[in-house]
């Protein structure tokens, strides 16, 4: 029996709201699973969707994007851009066969420490249920046989393959 | 009795969670009640209810399941939606009243309520819908009233006769063409409805 799967989730946080919400969850001693690792950005608007792909291709099983509630952005309106990027990203990722549960957007104000913890817990559960993403496995040979299949007997092919 | 249950029975929030899970649609917000009484003040049948809706919510919160399901309150709800549009916490009060009716029937407690006949009215009604796909006022009125109000049924019958005379009541029920299709749909729905959380987006906020 293998050990139960423990997903790794990367969480992108906004310095002004969700990172503070995470701080608040801490000071209030709210518990959530240790599977999430946070990166602090100045604003969810800083979130380049490339970061999400990097995380997924790099071994993460899920990515949680968090920011201020719409209308409450500390930089006034940048989180609307986050929402738009996320919406397009989610549609694109769906085409790449990545389940919507793996990349989520959660608004969390600085006061919503407990809620953020609940959302993290929910997401960890959902991703755990989905199983590992293992993107390196996806882009590995995935069933393509070695090239030797063509002229296995010819000496030059063996030379190339070596 | 309440004290007994809270000592040994389920957690005090359990009944509320049960009500929330059994209420269809999005968040019902029941857990957000601040006991302001807007519902109780607005209710057209409020003066005749054993408990105002607000009071009932407090009882739900306290886990007083039996008392709640025995109350006439849900049965006296006229579905006017005043409480729902006025509620400052956006609680889906009317929907919760329907939920409580269903629970009362399931637990068999409505028979102890002062509105003991109400469920039979509903059941008679849906019987016709299940069999014909349409409601049938004459059948409903005669079957329900003869069973429950034999004394006033005569007076009602007068009105029914008036309806017939005015051409406002059919003497035979109409059946839709696709009754078998409808029955298949309803049967499937009944089967699915038995699952937990089949209908709501569930849970507290």
């Amino acid at each position: 029996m293998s050990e139960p799967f423990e997903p790794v989730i990367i969480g992108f946080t906004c310095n002004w709201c969700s990172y503070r919400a995470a701080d608040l969850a801490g000071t209030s001693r709210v518990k959530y699973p240790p599977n999430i690792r946070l990166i602090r950005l100045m604003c969810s608007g800083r979130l380049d969707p490339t970061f999400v792909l990097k995380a997924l291709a790099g071994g993460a099983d899920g990515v949680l994007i968090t920011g201020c509630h719409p209308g409450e952005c500390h930089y006034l309106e940048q989180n609307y851009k986050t929402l738009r990027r996320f919406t397009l990203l989610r549609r694109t990722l769906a085409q790449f066969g990545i389940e919507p549960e793996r990349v989520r957007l959660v608004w969390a104000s600085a006061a919503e420490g407990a809620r953020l913890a609940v959302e993290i817990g929910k997401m960890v559960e959902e991703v755990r249920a989905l199983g590992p993403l293992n993107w390196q496995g996806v882009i590995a040979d995935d069933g393509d046989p070695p090239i030797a299949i063509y002229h296995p007997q010819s000496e030059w092919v063996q030379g190339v393959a070596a | 009795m309440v004290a007994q249950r809270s000592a040994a029975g389920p957690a005090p929030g359990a009944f509320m969670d049960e009500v929330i899970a059994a209420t269809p649609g999005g968040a019902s917000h029941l857990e957000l009640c601040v006991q302001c009484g807007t519902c109780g003040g607005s209710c057209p049948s409020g003066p005749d209810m054993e408990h105002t809706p607000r009071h009932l919510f407090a009882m739900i919160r306290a886990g007083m399941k039996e008392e709640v399901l025995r109350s006439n309150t849900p049965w006296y709800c006229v579905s006017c939606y005043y409480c729902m549009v006025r509620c400052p916490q956006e609680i889906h009060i009317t929907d919760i009243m329907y939920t409580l009716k269903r629970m009362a029937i399931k637990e068999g407690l409505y028979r102890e309520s002062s509105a003991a006949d109400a469920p039979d009215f509903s059941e008679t009604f849906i019987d016709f819908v299940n069999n014909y796909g349409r409601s049938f006022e004459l059948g409903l009125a005669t079957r329900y009233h003869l069973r429950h109000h034999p004394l006033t049924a005569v007076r009602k019958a007068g009105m029914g006769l008036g309806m017939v005379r005015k051409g406002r009541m059919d003497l035979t029920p109409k059946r839709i063409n696709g009754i078998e299709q409808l029955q298949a749909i309803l049967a499937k729905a009944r089967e699915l409805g038995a699952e937990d959380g089949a209908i709501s987006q569930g849970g507290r906020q």
Partner: protein
Amino acid sequence: MSAKYGYYPGCSLERNAIAYHQSAVAVAPVLDIEFVELDDWNCCGATEYIAIDVLPAYALVARNLAIASRQKLSGGNQNQVVAPCSACFLNLSKVDKYMSDAPRLAANVNTALAAGGLSYKPGSVRVRHLLDIVVNDVGYDAIAAKVQKPLYGLRIAPYYGCLIVRPGFQGAFDDPEYPMSLDRLMGTLGTTVVDFPVKAHCCGGHMTQISEQVALELIRQLLQNAAEYEADAIVTLCPMCQLNLDGYQEAVNRHYGTKYHIPILYFTQLMGLAFGLPAATLGFGKEFVDAAAALNKIGVQPPPKPKKERAGKEALPMPEMAAGGLSHES
């Protein structure tokens, strides 16, 4: 080209509210609208089905929505269904809304529908009440242009009841507390409209069957206010409201020792009269409280405008009503 709408009459309009159906069908061509009845529709469950079993209640309604979304109508308004009965209107729009809000519910309802070879995508049918279509799609000006015989001198208490303005599952077309569209419509027909304070109160609904005592009191309150405002008739837009106020008026009089005689008419009936349609095509005569006396009051001249009582010179100014409001004479 006339505007086409899917038409969901509901069980009441088949019989008990036949006057509503007849008059709606009669005025439609005048207003250049066409109703296409949904194929083999079924009962919406009223307020009863949901009290017994929830998922079947939703599936019951959803079958109608599925039929409506499948039925192709030419001439626009493809996804719009008119329900003249307030309870039907509420149930159809509610099921659509809750299916949108709760994907799990939508999935289960669709699984049930699939058992009958149907499916319904939440949000694909817009359910409209007949009054909404008349005042917002046709419009007051277009209606005014069709008025042949203004109903001068008739004092009308416009009565909306509950479900068409509350809670507005697909967005309310009028204020849930103090609607004005029926008031304006009746004004357009030439009637004198009273500022009916209980216009959106409850008619008692199914309480006539559950606890007649409770229902009679609610009906009495409505009649009492209409009488205080000296209304010749109460105009309604819901079969249940009509039935309760009309059919139980005698019971109220007997129970409270009162002598109310206020006919309860559908707004479409008065529209038909104003448009000059023959009364026989509008379902008159089906009401229990005879409307003949009231209708005889209709004059050919507009009544004189009542003198506005001059406020005392100490009087404080009155705040203005919100924009679009109608001022009443009383």
